[in-house]
């Protein structure tokens, strides 16, 4: 389908929040497969997860399959790994991505490596759902977008949807994927609304989505930077600059072909992300694009990530920390 056809089809879909879409994906997966279960802090009703991702599900499926844990991120992720080694499909919730630092031995040394270390004799089909702060004045330990850290660990699939529709389709795929998937749910997007197909809905991992077509500049982004990029593109359109916004949706697997195809046409590329710019995901993408299209690009590939600092509290400083629409538009103007 073309983006326009997709938009038309989407008109008929019911509208809900990204959090509701997450809830739907889990609900459908649990209904389809009794080996799917959830574990995490405060995920049982009446709380239903502090971001409401599992609201109603412990009531529907019981507390065996939607189970609260102590505040023990290592035990949460480790228990998910153990159950998955023998074929169950656990969905672990780590309340905020910053707390991956607590669980990282289980994530990086075990979940990511057990398939390889066992020569393929075991695998770890877990999904770790986690909220990503940022833009909400939560300070340095509740706001980090750590996809770059995950990408540096071979064996982890890294997923970050930007719309309710994508969240439902990607999370469903993660749950039934045979590898460990990190599903990053941006706080600023959790309660935004959009059309979501009813019933079972899956989106393959590793397929980027053109969120806006354009001819002059390719803007590559994902997660909560997507609406910022789209807002910038909207503004630029009125100035006569046509911006293509590519939402990668998954960082691993990485749909680099979608980026290259667009870049071949526009010959101008900007990569925008909430992760730290230094040694960030944008550096890898920029290096590949520059290498593959050396001599064809009109301008050097540009990157815009977060400032190399812990995330500040004051709103005036936090706004300067992440890429936002005004500065994204500025960067596109320099490229165009």
């Amino acid at each position: 389908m073309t983006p326009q056809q997709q938009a038309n089809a989407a008109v008929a879909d019911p509208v809900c929040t990204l959090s509701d879409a997450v809830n739907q994906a889990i609900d459908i997966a649990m209904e389809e497969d009794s080996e799917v279960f959830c574990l995490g802090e405060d995920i049982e009703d009446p709380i239903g997860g502090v971001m409401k991702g599992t609201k109603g599900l412990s009531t529907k499926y019981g507390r065996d399959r939607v189970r609260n844990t102590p505040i023990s991120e290592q035990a949460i992720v480790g228990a998910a790994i153990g159950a998955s080694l023998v074929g169950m499909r656990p969905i672990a919730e780590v309340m905020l991505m910053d707390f991956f630092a607590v669980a990282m031995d289980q994530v990086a040394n075990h979940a990511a490596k057990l398939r390889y270390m066992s020569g393929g004799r075991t695998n770890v089909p877990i999904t770790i759902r986690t909220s990503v702060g940022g833009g909400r004045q939560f300070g340095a330990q509740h706001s980090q977008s750590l996809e770059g850290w995950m990408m540096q660990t071979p064996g982890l699939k890294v997923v970050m949807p930007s719309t309710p529709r994508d969240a439902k389709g990607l999370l469903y795929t993660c749950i039934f994927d045979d590898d460990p998937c990190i599903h990053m749910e941006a706080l600023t997007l959790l309660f935004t609304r959009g059309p979501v197909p009813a019933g079972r809905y899956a989106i393959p991992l590793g397929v980027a989505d053109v969120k806006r077509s354009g001819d002059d500049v390719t803007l590559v982004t994902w997660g909560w930077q997507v609406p910022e990029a789209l807002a910038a593109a909207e503004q630029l359109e009125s100035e006569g600059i046509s911006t293509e916004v590519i939402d990668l949706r998954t960082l691993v697997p990485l749909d680099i072909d979608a980026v290259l195809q667009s870049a071949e046409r526009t010959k101008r590329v900007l990569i925008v992300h909430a992760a730290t710019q230094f040694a960030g995901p944008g550096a890898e993408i920029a290096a590949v694009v520059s290498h593959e299209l050396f001599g064809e690009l009109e301008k050097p590939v540009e990157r815009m990530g977060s400032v190399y600092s812990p995330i500040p509290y004051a709103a005036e400083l936090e706004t300067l920390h992440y890429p936002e629409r005004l500065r994204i538009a500025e960067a596109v103007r320099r490229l165009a």
Partner: protein
Amino acid sequence: MTALTNDAALRIFRTMTTIRTTENRIIRGLNSGELTMTFYTVRGQEAIPAAIGEHLRREDYMVTTYRGMHDCIAKGVPLEELLAEMCGKSTGTSKGKGGPMHVSDPHSGLMVTTGVVGGGLPIAVGLALSSALRGDGRVTVVNFGDGATSIGATHEAVNLAALWQVPVVFVCQNNRYGEHTKFADYTRSASLAERFATYGLSARAVDGNSIEAMSEAAEAAITQARSGGGPTFLECMTYRLGGHSFGSTTEYMDPDELARAEAEEPVARNRRWLVAERGIGEDVLNQMEAEVEAQVESALTFAKNSDPPPPEELHTDVFSTMAASPR
């Protein structure tokens, strides 16, 4: 509780003999330059897994650590594939991609060998949770050293297992050293069993070097877990009869204490017990030892004669499909 029969005692002792003979052969190979591998001695700790293995079924799960060759053998990992893995060969349990610290053999229930102290306990709780959810009657045993009782993951896991009452047995092989540091130099606790009992699960200390005591404790803990009675923490008292790893020094070990432990080392001690208390004939033991010797030599020959993994194995098994890896 069933009384330990002579047949069972002999099976346990045969497993201990296999472990000791394998270690002796590896050390000989490492000293002569015949073999190259990282090796963590299990000398002195043989009775613990040998007795546990007697009471486990093949489909039960086990998790162990880098110091886990004895656990792998006792759980029934085929010796040929185990030694091939330790030698980095394509015929190994992980096709040579895991190594001595990462043996996995789901067929025999050996699910994970971790190289991270304490890293296996949370995973064991998850394996046990799967059994609780599925009602499959399996038990999970997780082995770790006393050193692992100082790391956070261990406490998170034991607390969660007690809370959920999942069928897991925590086997703390207290060999008196956390890497190169003595027990008394890293904790003020006198008893780990007492410390962990406060999490609300069964906890006891046991003579880990006695076939009889270990078998009784293992059977009780495994039976309790299998019947839905919840987890147990077993502090199995033993002594590491060597340095942390092959080639590392022992100057931090008290020579007199080491000499006393060596004099009471479990293979010779339990052999004496079998002859004196169980009336097992020397000829029976001699014949068994000769059989084990031949079996170990044959397994090592298989490992040595196997091919290393081919270059394409570098890229496989990262994900379920190679297409998912970045190019």
